[in-house]
């Protein structure tokens, strides 16, 4: 079929030919299905909730199975870090890397502050798992930050 005929079909909303080549840089299955966007206030509430409670944003947007999975997964990562007596970082003046590490760990939201301020958890320097546990704890925070971004994408209709 000529190019002009194919264009006319597209304008009428008819499906393109099966053997039509994909646009450059795109492969079959690359397209992400989109969802209708929600109101801006709801989107902002969702990302705040997503930060405070892992999976909370997904729950607010009606993605229950994924919300449960993310909640369990982030908390499991955090729990393994605590089981290993990993360092729960806190701001240290004059140490930019420590600040970054703390911000990363704070990504967990309420669980981070509950551990720090309510449970009084700090980690055990003498434990063999101190460094590894710290990596798990920071990873849990970073995972939740990605979930915040994912929540935003869902809220504005970029993802389902």
């Amino acid at each position, binding site marked *: 079929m000529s190019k002009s005929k194919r264009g006319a079909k597209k304008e009428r909303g008819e499906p393109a030919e099966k053997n039509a080549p994909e646009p450059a840089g795109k492969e079959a299955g690359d397209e992400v299905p989109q969802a209708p966007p929600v109101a801006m206030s709801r989107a902002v509430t969702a990302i705040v909730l997503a930060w405070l409670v892992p999976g909370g944003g997904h729950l607010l947007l009606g993605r229950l199975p994924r919300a449960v999975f993310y909640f369990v997964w982030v908390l499991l990562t955090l729990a393994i870090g605590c089981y*290993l007596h990993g*360092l729960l970082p806190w701001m240290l003046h004059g140490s930019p890397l420590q600040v970054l590490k703390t911000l990363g760990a704070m990504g967990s939201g309420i669980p981070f502050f509950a551990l720090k301020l309510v449970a009084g958890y700090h980690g055990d320097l003498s434990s063999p*798992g101190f460094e*590894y546990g710290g990596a798990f704890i920071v990873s849990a925070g970073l*995972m939740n930050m990605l979930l915040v971004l*994912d929540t935003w994408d869902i809220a504005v209709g970029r993802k*389902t």
Partner: protein
Amino acid sequence: MSHFLLMVVYATLLSVFFAVLWRREPKERWKLFLQMFFGLVVGAVVLAWLMYPFPSGPPAPIP
């Protein structure tokens, strides 16, 4: 708990998380999971093997 086991646990947690976050189809999820899991584990072992001949430095300072 051994270092290797901890690395495998860490790789599993990350791989499953990213597979669920970035892919929607089960087949695609499995593919990404396997790529990431083996990439992390095998990559770390290869890196460790490459660093093996280098002498270790002084002990790290206690933070």
